């Protein structure tokens, strides 16, 4: 049986969020959209499994996560995007900050995190999922989400600008370069 129109409309509304999440994982915009397409197709194939009382975004993000993990397995965990390609690629999302060094550092640092730390960190900070939702997406206990988010944060910071606490006060973006 085909997915009903209302479900398709709900699904379409999630596409921008899915695309952002995919791009935060695979960086290359075209690969990210392929991942979104795979997630959409899987969602449509299993639409009857979706419980309408739940948040469809959390549901499709968990499908996207599975698609991502499948693809990583298929590729043998090879990440082919070089940090320098992120800077001026035509598909790179535009960002309005005056400091290109920061953008590069942040994304390449993010890429260097293990996927076990990167995904929870992105789900919580970028997608603003609760720990419980994040646990549901990744199928890990909440306590694991907690510690991975925390370790991901610390690791990201260490990659960005060395170690140790830094002076308080207004934070200039420039200081992390």
């Amino acid at each position, binding site marked *: 049986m085909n997915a009903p129109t209302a479900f398709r409309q709900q699904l379409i509304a999630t596409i921008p969020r899915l695309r952002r999440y995919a791009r935060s994982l695979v960086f290359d915009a075209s690969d990210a959209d392929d991942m979104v*397409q795979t997630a959409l197709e899987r969602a449509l194939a299993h639409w009857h499994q979706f419980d309408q009382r739940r948040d469809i975004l959390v549901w499709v993000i968990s499908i996207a996560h599975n698609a991502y993990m499948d693809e990583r397995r298929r590729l043998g965990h090879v990440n082919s995007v070089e940090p320098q390609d992120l800077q001026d690629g*035509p598909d790179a*999302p535009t960002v309005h900050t005056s400091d290109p060094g920061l953008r590069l550092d942040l994304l390449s640092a993010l890429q260097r995190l293990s996927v076990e730390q990167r995904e929870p960190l992105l789900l919580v900070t*970028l997608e603003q999922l609760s720990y419980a939702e994040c646990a549901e997406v990744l199928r890990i206990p909440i306590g694991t989400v907690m510690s991975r988010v925390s370790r991901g944060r610390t690791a990201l910071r260490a990659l960005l600008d060395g170690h140790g606490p830094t002076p308080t006060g207004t934070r200039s973006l420039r200081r992390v370069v």
Partner: protein
Amino acid sequence: MNTTFNDLPHDTRLSAWLDDELNKEQRAEVEAWLRDNPDDAARVRLWAADRDVLRARLGPALEEAVPTRLEQVVWSHSPSTLSSGWQRVAAGLAVLAIGAALGAGLAWRWQRSNPAEPVVSGDTGWEQRAVTAHSVYVPEVRHPVEVAVAGKSADESRAQEEHLSRWLTKRLGMPVKLFDLRAQGYELVGGRLLPDAAAPSAQLMYQRSGEAMAPRVTVYLRKPESTTPAAFRYERQEDLGMFYWVEGSTGYALVGALPRDQLMSLAESIYKQGQN
């Protein structure tokens, strides 16, 4: 969480506070700690700043127009449709594997287009523009392309190729890759931007290596109105042959004054590279 909260590593508690995952007492406890420990407070501020920069950096993806193909996937999906995207790459390769086994001509769904065939969409006629563009630019001696890729060194040529690919990708609003046809004996000359019905299209020109008046072939690329994969078609107009097809988010037309089998081996290579 109450009983075990204080057993959690310090950073985990601070991090959970930042994510607003604590109950009232836990929150008060962490906030008191942060007041007394400016170094930790500074660290948490940095985490918050990293979070904000992440959002700022990746946020613009939300504002982008959703590619038509993704919406079409949702609207056109039915349980029987061949899934596309990554899974179709595998399917495409399977088609080619069968092609190798049976002889490409049999396995490829090429067919001679017939003027009496019903027109299934408005997305027709573009292949004629590909032929016209071919006929206009191929005879050019001095300006066959708008951006030439030949450079004084391999590095310079590579830089030119990257520039060409980036530029066309940007203008067409879809990934434009430059196909490597050297295995078939053709070198990339360069490319140009062309007007098409609704949006720009691109023409890449290739020339057989090592001959002064060597034959040239062109690859015409455009964003199709419909992303429904279209079967390979072959057409011949006097001495010009053409293969054209739609796959993924790209419409392809390969034009050249070559025998069909030679043109097909080029088309096959372009098809494979377009899949990767």
